């Protein structure tokens, strides 16, 4: 982490320096006021005759110092921000860059949501930590130390007031924050409960109405709401105690200063101006102490965030480039050789071997969770096999440069991941330099052209965030257009036409076969009708290859296949 900060060391050093300047000016003020009161007004060293000239020169001096202090404060802010924001920017970029170099297995382990918070929220926290450290921490620290020194230099007896009040204030702040912190956790939980009841009622509105459970839902919400309000009230009550207690401690300290000061003035050791200055100092000190605890909170939150960001930064990519550039004579051959694979301890795929020849169309069938998706994701090397090898065009995928390997494979996922831009841009992801005709052609093959052209802005229609404005089938067809446009030698459809009705799907496959004869096509499907016309169909059962043959042959030889066939196409 410090390495990222090193680049900005000058700013990081200047910010606290200027801050010192500002605090110094703040601490000088009460002293000068003391001069005005004691010498200017009371004329203590002048036998009780006031000195107007002294008042105006001191006043001018004060104004000057105030201006200098303000300047220092602004400059400190400028440097602190230059440092922390640039640092944050570097960190953010590094984290993002590193994330994209990770393998899907690694991002799965972090979980998507966690990576997003690390890159966005956590980095902001770290940034704030830096600002607080070089600015807020310096300011409050200086105010406390400087204030105490100034007060003691006025009169050592004020030390007693500080010694008494400081521990009290510290104790109170720590006690209240200690009590409140766990309550914030509970509050968040209660808030989540309320939100989840709401969410369920909005998404499940039909079911609630259909079973006439509005009253029940209202009661359920009422309960969650009450719990939330109660927790919130508890926190607010806690703080209701805190503010007055803090105030009385502060006020009592002021009274103590006046009292002590009174005794010292009577004894002749102190002037009335000094008492007034001491009142200002003690207020400054105690306020700074309270603020310091807040800063500690930011710091502790920031350090936790920092740790989480570091975890992401220090995670080195599990899957790295091989040396092979990807030039092969063969085009579109895929070979699984005794492949075993699993995410955790248990193997999901067990000893799978089969070969897909160039230009062949292969269907893959099997129950949910049997490992179909895992199987095809081994081809672009999203994951590495545990045993055996996957060969593309006769070369082990681990020997390829990743970019070269992935240029050979075009993959359409079950969940169509579209991006928040125009439909055209989304399809262009397949091949950046494709012409408009190419895009239209790909959309035509994917049976997407009609609905795209009927959309308000045609190909320039925006895909709303996460594709909300499009239906599932439309999203799938755009994703398929994208993968077709890529024109890779191996095309993999991971159950990505499931939301289409069978007629549309059948047309899509027919057009695809006509247009892209030479592509090797691997199609995962739930419905037999989707893959019936494939050259060969692989049936996966319990992580093993149960059968691999054409539809007709499978009907004769494979019992599992017959079962699936009967359940889907015959009366059940």
């Amino acid at each position, binding site marked *: 982490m410090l390495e990222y900060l090193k680049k900005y060391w000058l700013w990081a050093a200047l910010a606290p320096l200027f801050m010192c300047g500002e605090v110094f000016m703040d601490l000088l003020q009460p002293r000068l006021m003391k001069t005005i009161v004691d010498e*200017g007004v009371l004329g203590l060293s002048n036998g009780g005759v006031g000195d107007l000239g002294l008042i105006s020169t001191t006043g001018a001096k004060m104004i000057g110092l105030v201006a200098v202090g303000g300047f220092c404060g602004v400059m400190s802010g400028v440097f602190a921000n230059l440092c922390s924001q640039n640092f944050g920017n570097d960190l953010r970029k590094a984290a993002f860059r590193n994330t994209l170099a990770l393998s899907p297995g690694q991002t799965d382990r972090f979980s998507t949501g966690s990576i997003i918070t690390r890159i966005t929220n956590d980095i902001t926290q770290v940034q704030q930590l830096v600002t607080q450290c070089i600015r807020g921490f310096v300011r409050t620290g200086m105010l406390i130390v400087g204030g105490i020194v100034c007060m003691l230099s006025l009169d050592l007896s004020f030390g007693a007031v500080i010694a008494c009040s400081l521990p009290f204030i510290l104790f109170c702040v720590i006690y209240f924050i200690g009590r409140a912190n766990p309550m914030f956790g509970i509050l968040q939980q209660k808030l989540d409960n309320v939100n989840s009841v709401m969410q369920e009622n*909005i998404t499940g509105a039909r079911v609630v109405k*259909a079973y006439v459970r*509005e009253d029940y839902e209202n009661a359920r*919400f009422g309960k969650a709401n009450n719990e939330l309000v109660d927790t919130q009230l508890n926190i607010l009550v806690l703080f209701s105690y805190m503010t007055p207690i803090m105030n009385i401690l502060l006020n009592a300290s002021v009274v103590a200063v006046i009292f002590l000061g009174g005794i010292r003035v009577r004894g002749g050791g102190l002037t009335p101006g000094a008492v007034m200055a001491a009142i200002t100092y003690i207020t400054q000190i105690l306020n700074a102490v309270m603020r310091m605890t807040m800063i500690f909170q930011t710091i502790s939150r920031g350090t936790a965030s920092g740790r989480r960001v570091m975890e992401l930064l220090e995670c080195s990519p599990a899957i790295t480039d091989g040396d092979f550039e990807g030039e092969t004579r063969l085009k579109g051959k895929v070979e699984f050789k005794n492949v075993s694979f699993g995410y955790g301890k248990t193997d999901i795929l067990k000893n799978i071997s089969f070969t897909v020849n160039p230009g062949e169309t292969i269907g893959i069938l*099997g129950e949910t969770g049997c490992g179909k998706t895992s199987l095809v994701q081994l081809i672009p090397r999203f994951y590495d096999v545990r045993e055996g090898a996957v060969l593309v065009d006769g070369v082990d995928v681990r020997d390829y440069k990743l970019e070269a390997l992935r240029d050979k494979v075009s993959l359409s996922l079950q969940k169509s991941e579209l991006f928040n831009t125009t439909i055209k841009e989304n399809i262009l992801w397949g091949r950046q330099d494709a012409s408009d005709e190419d895009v239209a052609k790909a959309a035509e093959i994917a049976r997407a052209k009609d609905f795209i052209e009927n959309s308000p802005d045609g190909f320039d229609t925006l895909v709303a965030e996460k594709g909300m404005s499009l239906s599932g089938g439309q999203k799938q067809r755009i994703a398929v257009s994208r993968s077709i446009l*890529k024109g890779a030698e191996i095309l993999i459809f991971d159950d990505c036409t499931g939301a289409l009705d*069978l007629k549309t799907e*059948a047309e899509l496959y027919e057009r695809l076969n006509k247009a892209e004869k030479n592509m090797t096509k691997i199609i995962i499907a739930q419905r037999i009708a989707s893959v019936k016309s494939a050259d060969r169909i692989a049936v996966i059962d319990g992580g093993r290859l149960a059968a691999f043959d054409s539809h007709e042959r499978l009907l004769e030889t494979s019992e599992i296949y017959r079962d699936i066939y009967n359940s889907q196409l015959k*009366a059940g």
Partner: protein
Amino acid sequence: MRGYRLPGMRVRRDRAARSEKPKDGRKTMLRLFAYFRRESLIAAGLFGAVLAVVVCSVTVPGLQSLAIDRIAAGRFDSLPYVLAVMLGVYGINCICTFFQSLLSARLSQRVVKRMREELFEKITNLPISYTDNHPHGDIMSRMTNDVENISNTVSQSLSSMFSGILMIAGTVFMMIYYCPALAALSCITVVMTLGITKLLASALRRSYTKRQALLGTLNAKTEETITGFKTVTAYNRQKQTILDFEKTSDELTKTGIIAEILAGSMGPCMNVINNTGFVIIAAFGGYFAIKGIISIGVISAFIVYAKQFGRPIDELAQIYGQIQGAIAGAERVFEVMDGKDEDKSGSRSMEGLDGVIEFKNVNFSYYPGKQVLYDFSLKIDAGKKVALVGATGSGKTTVVNLLMRFYDTDSGEILIDGVNIKDIDCRSLRRNTAIVLQDAVLFSDTIENNLKYSNPRADDEAVEKAAKMSNCRNMIAHMPRGYKTFLTGAGQNISQGQKQLLTICRAFLAEPEILVLDEATSSVDTRTEKNIQNAMVRLMNDRTSLIIAHRLSTIRDADIIVVMDKGRISEMGSHESLMEKKGTYYRLYMTQFAGKTT
């Protein structure tokens, strides 16, 4: 520490970022105010506490001035008495502050609680078209962010605005009382504060708004890339994505630096103003003291007054923006509350009806001008099964929506046993009609409660029987805690197929007269699908059933197959008769099940 600020700490000026303006502030304000009227007792108590706090805060500096004067004049004997009174007033101040924050907390929480309850109740009473037509995220944000925003404003800003105004008035009064000339000079700082705030705030708001927008873009980009991680990788788009991200990130940093420097300058600027005020009071106070107009103690009192005076002014400027944002939020909340409730005027009970359904010349459109059903007529005899088939968008789901009265027809009528469904009690209609939807909706609750959702009075025996009938007894028995297993996050801990089975079981338990099924099971594997299918067959037994059918077996077993095309019935009849006809159904059958294009 959201929403809480220790006394005396520098306030961050993020709030200035909120620049939203309400459309009709006055009306909304009055309506919000009505919520407080019902809590008039607490509000009165709060007012009393605030008043007491202000009086104490205004008296204390006077006492302090008295004490300093005693010291300066060397009258030390009476000093302890003055200090004792001071401590006493501080004590009262403390107690009143305590009551002030306690009452304000109670008041705001009660108001917010009621508002949230009313809003939720409203949402359950709004017609389905409301949730269909409004983005769910938007409704959620009104219920959470907007209400929360109102809550924060109500709890903090209101009482601080209140005490702020009183404090300013009290302080000004006291300052004028002690020394009008010095009071007038102190006002210079106020003018400076207002000037600087205005100057900085508008610049600040602009750069904050810009920063917020960029931050939104950056977050969206990150989210998109990370959720679409595999696609990014599969298409080798890492380089472009990184470049794109870095561009936004750099821009954000640039805007962020400007915004934060501006915001960071606010603190020192205020510090300069405060210190200037300090100097003014010290210098001019000294001058007046020499002239004998005021005592030294008054100078020290003025130092405190100036601070007391400056803080609320500074705060009020911020609160103003905050209140505007809250009112805009309240406007959005009230907009939901003003939505029209579902029409539930029917009164006839459905008990004892046979369940003959008849659609008579029904026309319907979701949006004017985009008709979905044209002159739809269909009669289903009691206990019969009707399968609706047709391409997506042909109007199948609409038929279901109308039968359940999720929507009302534009013209024509729907009758059950000859009674128009608009005359039937909506609750009775729905209680006697069970639906199984394509998206299996479950709630975060135990399996048992989820099943009993359709019939809260069902006993264990009935639940057990329904589970058996719907083929989910085995599955439930395998759950870690059986019927008491808690389904998290709307059933994320079980598979899609298991969810579907549970919704079928739920429909069983309802013992409905009429059954509506949307039987799509596209993402369910073969074995589970077989289970679901068998369960559905049992469920339909002896019930008037309307099925949006996707599966051959269901279609073939139906008494009548209705083939829909673009909102019209194109064919109707049994499987055999329709196959013989070689019409739409035949073609549909051939493509759908033989997987061939024709």
